């Protein structure tokens, strides 16, 4: 193990916020009970939202499709338990809007759909495997929820030679992937084998931050026989960002405005690998995922295996409730997560964590003038000049912001985290990015 923890690789820039992992890192994954109601949004992935294919009153089984994929860059949505469809209507979505959702009242039996059948991946070719992944609704579970079958379909002129598995989990507080690597190693490895078969390659490297030595030790020991490499990485945020991870492991940089396939790499989250194994071997679609419910406001932070559509309120109740009043509810981690309007929103496929802060956990700062300290520049993992882009954005100098490569920003939040003037740099850059894109569309 000691040797695995030496030669840590990393990228230039970044920082290490207090990681808050202690709240839930030691908690084994528990299965979250069935709630009274499941609200399953139709928009849960990047790409076209799915189209509802059930009506109110329909009886569904666990895994039955309730919405169909709309096009190639889209996936179907499935019922996450057996029961009755009681509504198909807009409901509050984690994005902060009311968006179409299928509401299911569970019958309590939690029966799988009989028509779902698994297969031995050896008996299927790459195209069949990809079709099954799309049919099972598999999307990237790291948070971006990009449809996996699309990522696995590089054009012929972009040969892939390396599969990178993202087990970094660099967002503070989140521990879902960590627990999954410890508890579901075999399923993850099986998913890796399926991915390698689809891509027709042998090299697979799992990247894990050095703050998870138990996972590094376990996966190194068990991966050796299956030709799965493990690369320990420096504990530094955003080590798990796709471009930074590729740079750390392969020394290749994805050219601006392109995808990892440009440098011969496909990156998949370890949680996605486990879901891929289930989708192929058992035929089970993506209807549940591991979610860290954590933060100083939780009485008992936990890692729960959650059915898609379970309300955050129900998850919080499973963790003994809150000790205090919630002041900020974040879906995801503290660096890139989205604040929620209410606990009455469902956990969806991209929900890696639910983080709750109270008033006393949230110091509030008054933004001051930029003192040109240069910290935002030294921590930016893309090596941008965040303060310059933000200044352009504030003055609506959109062309100049584009000249500072605003579109390359990955919105990791390092600059805002470190800024002594507490300027909302990422927010300004987001504004600039949106304005640049709007300008591009009109011209």
């Amino acid at each position, binding site marked *: 193990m000691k040797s695995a923890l030496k030669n840590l690789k990393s990228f230039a820039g970044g920082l290490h916020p207090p990681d808050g992992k202690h709240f839930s890192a030691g908690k084994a994954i528990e299965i979250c009970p069935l709630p009274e109601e499941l609200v399953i949004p139709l928009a849960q992935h990047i790409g076209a939202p799915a189209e509802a294919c059930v009506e109110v009153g329909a009886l569904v089984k666990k895994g039955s499709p309730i919405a169909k994929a709309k096009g190639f860059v889209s996936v179907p949505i499935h019922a996450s338990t057996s029961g009755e469809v009681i509504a198909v209507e807009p409901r509050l979505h984690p994005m902060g809007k009311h968006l179409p959702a299928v509401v299911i009242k569970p019958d309590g039996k939690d029966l799988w759909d009989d028509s779902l059948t698994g297969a031995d991946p050896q008996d299927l070719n790459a195209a069949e495997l990809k079709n099954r992944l799309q049919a099972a609704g598999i999307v990237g579970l790291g948070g971006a929820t990009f449809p996996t079958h699309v990522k696995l379909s590089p054009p012929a002129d972009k040969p892939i030679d390396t599969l990178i598995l993202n087990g970094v989990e660099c967002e503070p507080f989140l521990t879902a992937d960590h627990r999954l690597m410890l508890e579901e190693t075999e399923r993850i490895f099986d998913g890796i084998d399926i991915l390698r078969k689809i891509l027709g390659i042998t090299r697979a490297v799992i990247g894990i931050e050095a703050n998870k030595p138990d996972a590094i030790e376990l996966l190194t020991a068990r991966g050796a026989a299956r030709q799965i490499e493990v690369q320990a990485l420096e504990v530094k945020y955003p080590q798990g960002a796709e*471009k930074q991870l590729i740079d750390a492991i392969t020394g290749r*940089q994805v050219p601006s405005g392109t995808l990892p396939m440009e440098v011969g790499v496909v990156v998949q989250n370890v949680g996605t690998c486990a879901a891929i194994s289930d989708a192929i071997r058992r035929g089970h679609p993506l209807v549940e995922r591991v979610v860290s419910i954590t933060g100083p406001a939780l009485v008992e932070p936990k890692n729960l295996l959650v059915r898609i559509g379970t309300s955050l309120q129900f998850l919080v109740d499973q963790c003994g409730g809150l000790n205090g009043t919630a002041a*900020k509810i*974040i879906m995801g981690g503290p*660096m890139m997560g*989205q604040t929620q309007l209410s606990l009455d929103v469902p956990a969806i496929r991209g929900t890696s964590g639910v983080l709750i802060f109270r008033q006393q956990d949230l110091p509030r700062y008054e933004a001051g003038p930029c*003192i040109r300290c240069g910290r935002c520049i*030294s921590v930016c993992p893309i090596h941008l000049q965040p303060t310059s882009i933000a200044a352009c954005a504030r003055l609506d100098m959109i062309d100049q912001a584009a000249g500072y490569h605003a579109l*390359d920003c990955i919105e990791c939040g390092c600059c805002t985290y470190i800024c002594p*003037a507490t300027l909302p740099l990422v927010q300004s850059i987001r504004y600039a990015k949106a304005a640049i894109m709007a300008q591009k569309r009109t011209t």
Partner: protein
Amino acid sequence: MENQLYLSSSPHIHNGETTDQVMRKVIYALVPASLVSLYFFGLPALSVLLICTLGCMVFEALSCWLKKIPQTLADGSAALTGILLALNLPPSSPWWISLLGAAIAILIGKQVYGGLGHNPFNPALVARVVLLISFPVQMTNWTAPAPLTSGFDAVTTATPLGEMKTAVMLTGKLPALAQSGFSDYLLGNMGGCLGEVSALALLLGGVYLLYKKIISWHTPVAFIGTVLVLGGIFWAIAPEKYPSPLFHLVTGGLILGAFFMATDMVTSPVTTKGMLIFGCGCGLLTLLIRLFGGYPEGVSFAILLMNAATPLIDRFCRPKIYGQRPAKA
């Protein structure tokens, strides 16, 4: 649950170090040097320190009031400017020099540009240079250090750099003092500005700032390194005419300038590469002024000139963004 939820753009955490804390840490770092100056120069030094610091704070408050904007005293930058100004004045400065310096620093050096973060030149140095040019007599009236233990009789003296310049100009040769006696200089036992006297106390503060990551090593190392290397070359060529690099290091305002003035975030480059260029430029100009200029000391002028070059340096030192490195096989 009552709906008292904060909605905001990510990230949702901050490292907690805000501008006022940065300023406070720089002030802490100046405490040892200030104490040494009090020890060697006594009450006159205390009065310079107090008038400059309080003066800067009063003028800051006054500008905010005149500009009808919220008070900015709490950010600590005015107090810091005051202390830096005091450390750049002779201990014998009359009260009105200190007060005028404070007014120039805050009003002309900083607030006319829009306050903290907007001034192109280091405010304390603007004040020092205006005073130096306008009141050369008062600004070069040096008292010999009289440690608190030895009474309070002020004796007029010259700074080592001043003595050197005079001797070199008159005789073409270095005076004896420039060839020995470095331990006194190191500890601060020589004539000079409040903040020029103790290299050790300043270094202590500089190391604290480096340790706390308030400043990075690039500027001071490039600045001092350039002076040492170039000074060393001149010394090697003609040791009877040019002082040793060590003499350059421990006399005058080099250490104060390199660690506390050239590292002023607002007026120096934002990238590490830019900081290196900035530091080298400061070092080069300092040495040229010291050896060949009309003034014995060139640190202030050097830093101000490089301040003027900062936007240009920043323009040419933009970091190379991710994705521009050629792909490796």
